[in-house]
């Protein structure tokens, strides 16, 4: 492979990984923005979504149903967690962390109990399994699908947040939850909706990722740090931040792994530290 090809392919791969990260991290960022909850079970939504998607895909032979089924099932789990447990811990950062870790451990064990320890791959439609050639460079169709899916979700989220009444309520809650409550916005209901949406997005990412990364025990804590780095770099509660953060982290991770395999995590986290040293609230965060 010639040098320019290497850079083109790696950039494409990095972008597609960033697309996956966007699905994972946008939910975490939204949830944090509205509820200030550090949700360590967010990686579990990704993993559980992938497992549910796997079962749906095997039963129905439909990838679209797998995506929707995974997202819907995990949205229900998210709703249950927020409604029954996390709502009681408003403002207690440490309590939220420990409780969401408790859930993450339980989810991990339940997944092991239900799906066992073997790695699986979610079957994807034949149209997405191939590759295509542009200017002599071979690209994977599935990676292009990931980028398209993330772009579609990003546009939908932007329209939802920026152009609808519901979005305005959510933005008000992100800006100042107390004030929003004061002017008559039902913040608890907005929180519940955002939590459901955020967990569904992570699950969607899990199913989409399961098509090329596979599904296996331990995915939950493997992807969690990536979600956090994206959110830290981009700024908490910011959609543009999540987009820029995902692309940046996807590229950094991919080039780090390709160029300096032994230091790959370092090449991911060191730039994050640098950004934080300059802007403690992330690129798009508002303190």
């Amino acid at each position, binding site marked *: 492979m010639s040098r320019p090809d290497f850079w083109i392919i790696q950039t494409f791969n990095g972008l597609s990984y960033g697309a996956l990260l966007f699905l994972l991290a946008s939910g975490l960022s939204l949830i944090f923005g509205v509820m200030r909850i550090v949700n*360590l079970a967010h990686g579990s939504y990704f993993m559980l979504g992938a497992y549910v998607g796997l079962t749906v895909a095997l039963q129905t032979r439909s990838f679209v149903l797998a995506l929707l089924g995974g997202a819907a099932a995990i949205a229900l789990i998210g709703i249950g967690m927020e409604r029954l447990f996390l709502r009681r811990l408003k403002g207690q950062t440490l309590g939220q*962390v420990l409780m969401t*870790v408790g*859930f993450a451990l339980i989810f991990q*064990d*339940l997944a092991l109990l239900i799906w066992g320890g073997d790695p699986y791959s979610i079957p994807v439609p034949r149209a997405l399994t191939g590759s295509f050639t542009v200017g002599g460079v071979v690209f994977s169709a599935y990676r292009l699908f990931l980028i398209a899916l993330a772009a579609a979700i990003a546009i939908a989220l932007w329209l939802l947040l920026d152009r609808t009444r519901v979005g305005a309520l959510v933005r008000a809650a992100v800006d100042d939850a107390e004030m929003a409550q004061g002017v008559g916005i039902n913040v608890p209901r907005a929180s519940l909706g955002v939590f459901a949406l955020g967990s569904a997005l992570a699950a969607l990412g899990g199913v989409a990722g399961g098509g090329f990364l596979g599904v296996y025990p331990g995915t939950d*804590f493997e992807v969690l740090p990536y979600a956090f780095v994206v959110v830290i770099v981009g700024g908490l509660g910011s959609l543009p931040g999540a987009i820029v953060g995902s692309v940046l982290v996807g590229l950094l991770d991919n080039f780090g792994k390709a160029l300096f395999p032994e230091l790959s995590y370092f090449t991911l*986290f060191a730039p994050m530290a640098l950004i934080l040293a300059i802007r403690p609230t992330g690129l798009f965060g508002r303190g």
Partner: protein
Amino acid sequence: MIRRRALFALGVAAALALAGPLLPAYPLTLVTQALIVAILAMSLDVLLGYTGLPSLGHAAYWGVGAYVVALLATERGVGLAGCAVAGIVLAALTAAVFGLIAIRAAGTYFLMITLALGMVVWGLAFRWVSLTKGDNGISGVPRPDLFGLGSLAGPLPFFYFTLVAAVLAWALLGLLVASPFGLTLRGIRESESRMRSLGYNVWLHKYLAFVLSGAVAGGGGVLWAYYNGFVSPTDVQLITSVEALLMVALGGPGTLAGSVLGAAVIVFLKNFVSIYTKRWLLILGAVYIGVILFAPRGVMGALRGRSRS
């Protein structure tokens, strides 16, 4: 009050020292393990309970201490003193670098940044295969000789050595939190802006607490490497950091004795429950949720609340 607590803690230590020879082998190693982990929990409590800084990456310093021992003691044959000093100093240096980045942030951001910084160390342990042997970890860490006085290879000598180290760590941290420096930390926990307007250098106090806490955690990691004879990325992973937080929360943040208690409960629970069932992660998860729902101020907090009311 402080004197009474010191007497109580020394009494517990003396009771353990007397009980040591009477204990069968397995309980003795568990007590040893609990004492080592208690050092990690106490060091974290200085940040979480006394300064109000919820570090989510404390396993990093613990892991640096452990890896330094594993690297120096296996291939290079460095003795106890060299390993201990190198482990503690490198853990402190790691904390000194990470502190520069983390202390700038407050609250949730601090939590997330310490999480990410902890992942840097985990990533290096996992991927820097030529140094750390990656996922396989470094095995065959020999138990050291105590400065030519005798070998610490047996469970009982190692238990006594650990007990002395844990008492020293407790005394150091106990004196620290009772000192004017420690009182300032508590002031910062209660109101940072008030302390700043009173003329205290809030950043410097937090930073020093952060570095010192990292150094003590590194000391615990040194013992951990000798105790297990094996160091792997598991020792620096996120769950290890979170477990330390759970121990502090379970015992009651802001009470060193609580951290020791929390460490002991979790160590015993993990070891006993995993004997009887393969589903111990489920149970551990339930413990996390239960502690937060039913004992939000920890065991010590609940005890104190009762004695006051």
